[in-house]
């Protein structure tokens, strides 16, 4: 089933231009693995980039440049990419798209999950990049995530299971962007644990009573 909630064109274009930060790019590339429609948007934006690239000027290259490159063409080429890792594959219950898998040290269950609240666990994904934080959120079936607002942008993409909030129902591949105005209370669908990739810019701001108690935990 293809995704029905997509990232904004703005994000897809930034990804195509190469100006999007690395944490957000992980989420976008993961979504693109699952969404032919958004890949088509990115392909067009890249077509635009290619057109600008063709027509936005040239810089003189050094005299020996071509010869230097030709001399390198017969060098042994880099080793072919190894096939996808099989380590931990059998333990994997979720099919994790490669752009995300490349950042994970092991299978989903083997990651070091931190308890955030009843039925909610989080693990941070390490990047070298500055910018927003990226991590995975596991929500037990039927769990209500405490009502919270956002002090910055938050992007969530479902990898397994699903959840529902006032804006709709989200399933594998779906992306929800919450800006600093949105206050929501996602509820995980019954039946299956909900696994989400989350990119957060600011701190989450709990609004309910229980959430206030949990506030220290919500600082990813």
């Amino acid at each position, binding site marked *: 089933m293809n995704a029905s909630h997509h990232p904004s064109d703005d994000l897809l274009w930034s990804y195509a231009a190469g100006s999007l930060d*690395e944490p957000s790019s992980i989420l976008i590339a993961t979504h693109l693995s699952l969404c032919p429609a958004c890949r088509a948007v990115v392909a067009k934006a890249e077509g635009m980039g290619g057109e600008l690239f063709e027509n936005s000027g040239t810089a003189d290259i050094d005299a020996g440049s071509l010869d230097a490159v030709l001399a390198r063409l017969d060098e042994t080429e880099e080793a072919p990419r190894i096939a996808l890792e099989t380590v931990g594959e059998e333990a994997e219950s979720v099919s994790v798209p490669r752009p995300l898998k490349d950042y994970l040290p092991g299978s989903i269950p083997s990651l070091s999950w931190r308890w955030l609240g009843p039925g909610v666990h989080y693990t941070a994904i390490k990047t070298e990049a500055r910018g927003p934080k990226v991590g995975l959120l596991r929500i037990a079936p039927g769990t209500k995530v405490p009502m919270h607002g956002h002090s910055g942008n938050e992007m969530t993409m479902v990898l397994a299971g699903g959840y529902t909030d006032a804006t709709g129902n989200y399933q594998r591949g779906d992306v929800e962007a919450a800006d600093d105005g949105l206050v929501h209370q996602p509820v995980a669908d019954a039946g299956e644990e909900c696994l989400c990739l989350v990119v957060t810019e600011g701190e989450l701001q709990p609004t309910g009573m229980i959430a206030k108690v949990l506030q220290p935990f919500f600082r990813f």
Partner: protein
Amino acid sequence: MFGVHERFDVPRPPAVLMKGSTAGSRRGRRAVIAKKSGAAATSDTVVMTELLVLIAQHRDKDAFSRLFAHYAPRIKSYLMRQGANQASAEELSQEAMVSVWRKADRFDPTKASAGTWIFTVARNLRIDALRKERRPNFDPEDPAFVPEAETSPDRAVEVGETQVKIKAAIAELPEEQAEVIRLSFYQDKPHGEIAEELDLPLGTVKSRLRLAMRRLRLALGEEQ
């Protein structure tokens, strides 16, 4: 940096791609065109795409030299606009062209023109080398990858036509929209910084980008 004198070329239809009726005859004719055009490489998308196919299929160094003459100066210019100094832009341009040679077999003429594909190679190298970040990319070989529902047999024709339409659409963009598009693709800046540089509210930058995207979609016949 981007004055009005830098107009985009008038679009030229890729005649060869548009005439071909079967994959076989098209490939044959494209090969002839590539040979005929000689050392004076033109900016013709079709010729460059054909050169890249020759490199992928026959490891053709003459084709590579011609491709280099056309694209190395463009890659270098792109990198310098992104903040690389002359020496590092030179080094990275060479690196990018070595990459083009090595990865040529991954180029798919049914998905992109040569210029677009080489732009993505240069872009990824830039993120890696200048921004010191990784570039997450989707991988069609990934078992989790969801493929397109169908691929049209004449995709290469469509790519050529699409590129011509994109070119025309860019040429017709109002300057204020063209400016944000260029800054977005040509400087490694998030939209917030572009807004600061142009002394505009972020919302204005985003709405100009949206308008430009909409025009592009209209030009590609996606919205009525």
